[in-house]
């Protein structure tokens, strides 16, 4: 099964939380979702649970250490990498 395209999936997830700045997908994925106040710390827990569930992946401490984790685009990259290495 092909996973849903990660970036629009994530943007849609955040748009359920609040307004994501930008008019195009490219602009929207630049958003730093903490700085933009889109989620608080309990929000992160549901974000992780939802993403891990939707893409059948597991984040590790190493991923949380990455700067990329805080932007929608960066998170999409991490998710795509994890999906790519996942055993079929």
């Amino acid at each position, binding site marked *: 099964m092909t996973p849903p395209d990660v970036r629009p999936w994530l943007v849609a997830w955040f748009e359920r939380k609040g307004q994501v700045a930008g008019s195009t997908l490219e602009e929207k994925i630049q958003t730093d979702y*903490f700085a933009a*106040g889109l989620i*608080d*710390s*309990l929000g*992160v*827990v549901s974000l*992780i*649970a939802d993403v891990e569930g939707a893409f059948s992946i597991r984040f590790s*401490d190493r991923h*949380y*250490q*990455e*700067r990329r*984790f*805080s932007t929608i685009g960066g998170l999409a990259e991490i998710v795509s990498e994890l999906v790519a290495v996942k055993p079929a």
Partner: protein
Amino acid sequence: MTLKAAPDLLFLLGPSGEWIASNPMTRTHVAASASVLEGIRRTADGHGPDFVEALKGFDEVWVEDRTFFGCRDCTVADATGLELSPRPEARVTGAEAVATALQERFILIDDEAAYRKRFALKTRLLDPEHLGNFHQQMGFELLMRQHKDPEQWWVAQKFEEGLKTVRDNAYRKVQEEFLKRDVPKWALAGKKVLDVGCGAGYYSHLFASFGAEVLGLDQNPEHVSTARNAFRAEGLRFEVFDLSDLESLKRLGGGPFDLIYLSDVLLFYFIPYQPPSTLKGGSHTGRPPVSAASFLGTLKTLLAKGGRVRVLEPHGSFSLCLRYGDPSRPLAVLNEYRRKWFGITPNLQTAAQAFREAGFAVVDIREPVYEGPVRDREDAFLAEYPIWWLFELVPMA
């Protein structure tokens, strides 16, 4: 990029005769082959050979991560986070992989100034640059690793299901046992008690069981409803109340009180303000806290004549200090005291200054320890070092 030994390392002998390189500042630890220790020694000043180069010629090169978040089961557990049992599944071999593992655990570093800058508060939950204080690391552990709501977890790590008893950890062995010994001497029958930041209300109920009329206040509505459901007694009430709202606190009804009690609450008035988005857990109303002195000064106005305040707080030296050494006679190791970045408690001078500014005299200081049979390393530590202290305060004449 040249790797060198972090400036803060300790080298210990583990219980199975293995070497352990430990960084007490970052609370990170690895067991290592003797060759790795030799490699660290040769690269200690950053001018010797490259670490990977220094390991050439050794057959056996391995490290085993021995780090965990020490308080993952309970906030008052050993925060050192040093795993003493072997963890073969965490073993990494070969010079390159070992170098990476040592860097991740701050045994080797590449830039000392950048390393030092890490010892600071996180600016948000996911802030890889800063290690963050205890509450932030606790929040990270619960949210990111355990996927738990810190507020609910807080009650579960301290109390058994249904709040019948305190769990058999340092909360029971030291805090509750001390109160059970001491509260009967407080002569509470017929007295009015205010339990400030009462949490789930367990100690409010203890005071009521000695015949006091008790009002427990907490900002967290979940805790207050837990308390109301678990504890019903003559003269025992719980209210949701934000204590940092000093104007409302001044007008609090139900007083004046003969005893104002705070346990594990005053510390939040000493910690530099952290915006609620950086963590969730325990202390957050979203409002920058008022100073400990003005908070205590407001409480003073609620005291009856002859009344007193008892403050039971995590100890300024020994709460969260590192624990090393022999299981039967552990060492308490301090890595900070005056300018804490991981620790969350004021030191003695800072606490005393707040009491004085609020117009209180300290009439007693207690340092409770575990007094039961010593069965393990934790018991031995708690029997020797007090991880809480209690101040008894009366208004200055």
